[in-house]
């Protein structure tokens, strides 16, 4: 029986998981969230509602922003229970 020749179409397979990190969506941002660490209680509610995710937990349990990827939507500021995050112009 003749051997079946298989060809792979160009494209179609992406073999590096999570490779969108190469693209910095932070350049889309027109407003920037800023956290007041005195008010932050480290509840991570901003983190669970972040669509990116662009919020990182610091070693002391409080949060910090990854401005490389934050698109500045402002959900974190609106949902923060202690109003520790404010939105400022870039």
């Amino acid at each position, binding site marked *: 029986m003749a051997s079946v020749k298989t060809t792979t179409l160009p494209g179609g397979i*992406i073999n590096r998981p999570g490779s969108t990190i190469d693209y910095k969506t932070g350049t889309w941002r027109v407003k920037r969230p800023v956290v007041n660490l005195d008010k932050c209680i480290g509840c991570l509610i901003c983190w669970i509602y972040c669509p*990116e995710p662009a919020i990182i937990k610091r070693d002391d349990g409080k949060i910090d922003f990854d401005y490389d990827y934050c698109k500045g939507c*402002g959900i974190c500021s609106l949902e923060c229970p202690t109003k520790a995050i404010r939105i400022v112009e870039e």
Partner: protein
Amino acid sequence: MLVGEIKTIKELYGLDLIAPGHRACAGCGALIAVRQILMASKRPLIVVSATSCLEVTSTPYPQTMWKTPWVHLLFENAATAASGIEAALKVLSRKYNRQEHYIIAFGGDGGTFDIGIQALSGALERGHRFIYVCYDNEAYMNTGIQRSGATPLGAATTTSPVGTKIVGKTQQKKDLMEIVVAHRIPYAATASPSHWKDLVNKVRKAQSYDGPSFIHVIAPCTRGWYFDTSETIKVARLAVETRYWPLYEVENGRYRITHPVPNPKPLEEFLKVQRRLSHLLLPENAEILESLKAYVNERWERLQKLSACFA
């Protein structure tokens, strides 16, 4: 109590299966819902995605945001592909004692309500062990806000605009949950990303069943519903608090409202924050508003009666 119930956010930290840098709009509701679902899911996980906003924004070739095996298919056959993967892996695990996998299929409301419904129906009927998640942004947002079977009455879309002849969509929203429940599957539920604890535990519960399960999650869309990017979660929460989006589950045919809303906010509060629906508050559209309110109230009363039956 459910085994492995998630009680605090800190249990979920570090379980992200999506990478930042994806091209979803700022404040995308679908990405919040998908992110929470993936965090809650058991591993190893295979994700199947129909054509949708999610597919377009998550994999701008040659990049991908997924940190788990992911396959994209046509608009209509996410459920079919998920059942094929499940059947193949079942044989492999039987023959070679491989580890069992979990499978989640994602479809938008267009890919579930309209285009993918026969594939979904077939997969539910055959009883494959997978979760089908419909993230519902209530129109074809990916192609530019066209009406779908999920669009509510009176909502303005580009194909059902507000004008002198019609005022938004002239039909009610399709009740997809009832169609799914009619397949007598082990588990079906509605969820909202604003109530994250409810959502993640529904995912865990769905994966504990040896059969198909369905999760219908609301995904507010800043572009198509016309609200500020910061209000995504607020809008999702208002949908629940006004009884527009009842949170309930159907476990082996037994209905249960998981988030009772004893004192609902008036529906107007949900409508006025979105420009696609705010025209219903004008006095000349009072009739449409009444009709939408009647639909919402009837569905809630029906659910209450059904859950009382099984209490």
